[in-house]
């Protein structure tokens, strides 16, 4: 699971959960895998991302490195910044672990890089 995906996932479909965001990450196994860098794509993607959530997620899995916690001005033209963002958004890959609902503590397993967000009938 990439952190860009985590940036959008919630547990709000569960009964009794109002926001369900962001999900906590309890990572067991994290890898990085190389993805082609496309500066235009990344700079257009960044405004769609919740930056704080991204930074906290990156930090919780130990891959924040020196990514600024605040979005810098004119980042579109800062290739160095875009590369760091690219790495955190697309290259960090949670292989095994759990996603945890911040309101109920319900755990969603991540196996082989795939989060299982299925809910039981009595949870919806």
């Amino acid at each position, binding site marked *: *699971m*990439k952190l*860009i*995906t985590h940036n*959008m*996932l*919630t*547990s*709000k*479909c569960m009964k009794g959960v109002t926001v369900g*965001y962001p999900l906590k990450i309890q990572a067991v196994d994290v890898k990085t*895998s190389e993805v082609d860098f*496309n500066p*235009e*794509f*990344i*700079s*257009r*993607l960044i405004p*769609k991302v919740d930056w704080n959530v991204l930074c906290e997620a990156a930090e919780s899995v130990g891959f924040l490195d020196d990514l600024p916690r605040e979005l810098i001005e004119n980042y579109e033209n800062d290739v160095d910044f875009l590369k760091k963002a690219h790495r955190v958004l697309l290259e960090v890959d949670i292989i095994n672990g759990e996603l945890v609902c911040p309101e109920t503590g319900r755990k*969603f397993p991540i196996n*082989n*890089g*795939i*989060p*299982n*967000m*299925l*809910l039981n*009938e009595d949870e*919806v």
Partner: protein
Amino acid sequence: MDGNRSKNYEKKLNKKAKRSQHIVEKQTGIRCTDSVTQILAICNSGLVNGLSEDLVFESFIKYGPLEKIKMVPGKSCAFVSYKSLESAALAYNNIHGKLNIAQDNKPLHLSFVESFPEDLINKYDMPPGLLLLENFISEEEENRLLQLASFDADIESTTGTLKHRQVKHYGYEFRYDINNVDKEKPLSQEIPPDCSFLWKRLQETSNLFFEPDQLTINKYKPGQGIPPHIDTHSAFEDPIVSLSMGSSIVMEFRQDNGSTIPVLLKQRSMLIMSGESRYNWTHGITPRKMDIIPTETGLTVEQRGIRVSFTFRKVLKGECSCNYVNKCDSFLRANGREIQSHSAVKLEKSYVHDIYENIADHFSDTRHKPWPNVVGFIDSFEAGSVLLDVGCGNGKYLACNQQILKIGCDSSSSLVNVCRQRSLEAYICNCLHLPFKDQSVDGVISIAVIHHLANTERRLQAIKELRRILKLGGRALIYVWAKDQYKDEQKSTYLKQDRRNRKGKHLTPQTNTDSITITENNISLPVHTNRTQFQHQDVLVPWKLKQEKLQEGDKLFLRFYHVFEKGELEEMCKDLDNVEIVKSYYDEGNWCILLKKI
């Protein structure tokens, strides 16, 4: 002694009569009076006691010309109106307490009343949508047509004597056992060409463009009739026209609220039933030997002769879409079949989710080629957009357009694993509960997914989830399998994949005889024959392992599908808030809709 007894009898009678008068007043609101009027109420007998209009007519006409008779539906009273006070008084004196035709051969109790009960609908009104064209044909034409209707000449399966009358069918046989026509089996005998002049005349006289393909000839002897009925909605189009020949007859039209309108179908008249009168009123002919008919000089009785009616109808292709849903077999069938939610969950688990887990590898091997119009949609997003593929399968659309971010999800972990192996980003979830933030994506696709949900409520819920996660201005593309795989004379790819379907203009319709009953939920679903037109909306479609013949003992995988009727998807989306339908189209055997969040 005698005098005393008769006095006592009169006293008793008057007491009883007073009691029944009260009941009449209470039931009908008509006031009884001691002074002589032209109108008499029969206070202690009516339709519910088995008193017939015929018997009333017969008994009361003896004392003078009658104006009207009213049998009150569901009540034990009736009203008779004379042309003169004298006749009414004479009838009172001769019938009241003397004529023993009430229940158990008791005497009738009469009373003079102040007014005659009028129907809500004036008796000269017609049911809405009913048109009667008198003298539609000449006597000569009548004779010519009657010659077509000789029942003795040929006895075949399309001719028969029903309990109440003789019938003969042309074009299609109307089957009384199923109350419908077998639309796939037209008769070799079409409507005789001698009838064709009738359509031209309908057009000239009433501006009605009508070319029927089914004719039923009914022959009624005096005393025969036809029970009240509505012609099966799904069998025929609107209108239905009927030509009366040989003899006049009274046909009764009834509505649920009890309104009854007798319509005199004169010899050589053409009756046109359309709209409400066709879909919402029953029509029938009471089996009797005479009809009581209102004329300018009062009620008269007319003896029935042999009546022959030609009823022309056009067989309906597809299902009825009228608004009279309580009377509509198409509507009731479609909605009665609706699978309840708790069963839907189990059905989707056993016949969708579990099946995909089992067939995932083979399914993935056969799903390489993305559909061009879906790719076109994905390519229409600008760089940096976020697109979610709900029901991504093996991820064939996740590999398109490198300028946007694509994430997939599917309920099948095996298929999501395939995505993962292809380095595509995907997770496992159910499309009814997307674990995505509100307003988080620019685009979403749902290709061949929603047809796996077992009822309308769930299918709608899936569409609402797509809407929820879309940003304002975001767009959703939905594809569902169409019931009709044969559009504009073109076979869909699905049908063409069977070699036998490639040649020849028409498909051989196959009737599904197999059906599987899912015992725990008591749902019975037909098993579809692959590469043929669908016969039902809710079906189980077999998954066949390609290139390999099924060996005995091999497991046959059945997937649940709800195939969509034309307009069904659009109808579901039409009333949704915050979305507009950008485009709705048919693409290779699928109904497709493009929505925009507003």
